């Protein structure tokens, strides 16, 4: 028998929460978060048009860097939305 240290350290189990989904898109405010990668803007532009046709109001936001999580002020600007689509081009 041989005993060795675990090189992974002590991972903590994160607690997660998943938001409740809406029943319909009609009349909802939907946030569209663009990450700035190539063509993410085109994905978001067309999504905005099609969701507006379905009765949603659109709020748009843009991340300053696609290589980092969105800063708090960007998340804050979307926190009042009923739902958000985060578009990642590439």
């Amino acid at each position, binding site marked *: 028998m041989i*005993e*060795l240290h675990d090189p992974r350290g002590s991972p903590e189990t994160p607690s997660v929460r998943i938001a409740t989904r809406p029943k319909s898109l009609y009349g909802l405010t939907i946030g569209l978060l663009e990450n700035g990668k190539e063509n993410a803007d085109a994905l978001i532009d067309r999504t905005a048009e099609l969701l507006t046709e379905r009765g949603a109001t659109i709020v748009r936001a843009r991340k300053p860097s696609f290589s980092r999580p969105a800063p708090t002020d960007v998340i804050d600007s979307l926190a009042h939305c009923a739902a958000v689509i985060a578009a990642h081009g590439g």
Partner: protein
Amino acid sequence: MLTFADAETAYDYFVESYGDGLPVVLPTAQRVDDLLRACGRDPNDVLGAIFPSGTRATVRDVAVNAVMAGLPSAAFSIALAAVEAATDPTFNLNGIQSTTHHAAPLIIVSGPLAAHAGMNAAGNALGQGNRANLTIGRTLRLVMMNVGGGRPGETDMSVQGSPAKTGFAYAERLDLLAWPSLAQRQTGRADSTTVTLFAAEGPHMLGDHRSATADRLLQNFAETMRAPGSTNSCAPGDMVLAICPQHAAILARDDFTPETIARELFERARNPLGFLEGLGEFDETRTRRFASAYGDPNDPQTRVPVIARPESLIVTVTGGTTGGFSTVVPTWPASTHVFRIVRGNA
């Protein structure tokens, strides 16, 4: 602790599950304790969260991976400082661990503790043949893989990676320095040692045996720095210059210092927007946005620098005296370099 039937089973398991592709030394309690005793720090000290897993690495966790990497105990304090630097949000470790770019952490060690750790700053400073140089970089990589969970094909999306991803560390050569060391410029103290952590693309050699003046030599540096394939060309960021002693002597003789070298290269290493348009990573929105900081974003004559500011260039001297070969290391511009002071071993 993990328990195995015998050392051979354990070895196979460690190489396969916790390795980087090379053989590893098994982290027995004895070996880990020896390393911890040598550094004199509380094994439970938390250095910070290693992303993407977000697991908080302790001094002990680093020691376990350092043993696996084969790190000499005299170099442990440098490895600890490197891991601590990696947890700085400015460095963007989560991005480096998951990007499709080839970015790898480069550890630059400047100051007297580099020699104490046994690092080589002379011939082959960026190459093979020195245990401390190779295992300092490897320790950080193993911490990133094991504590941080950055694994190729799972969370690490690098398209090709680079040899630097196995481990990339070098020391500044102090005995031939004509100006204050990088550590001294960072801390204001001649006796301090620092590690500077930088998101490195593959290193690119810069050979020049003809230039007799700093002016001609710096033009070669500038041309090499502005290569359009590197991400710097369309998104200005940091860059590392590892200047060889022969080149450094020419620059010093012509009264250049790290600050004036950086200012000069900030001006010279630029590409006109008209050259970048339609080339490589040129992006109508993004590149023009960057360009607007340096001139009219719609004028093809506007010259876009490859380093964001003069301070973005990390000027170091390293290597042997047998020729005029320096190295330019471009970056992944979503990361900014950080440094930490190395605490001396107890």
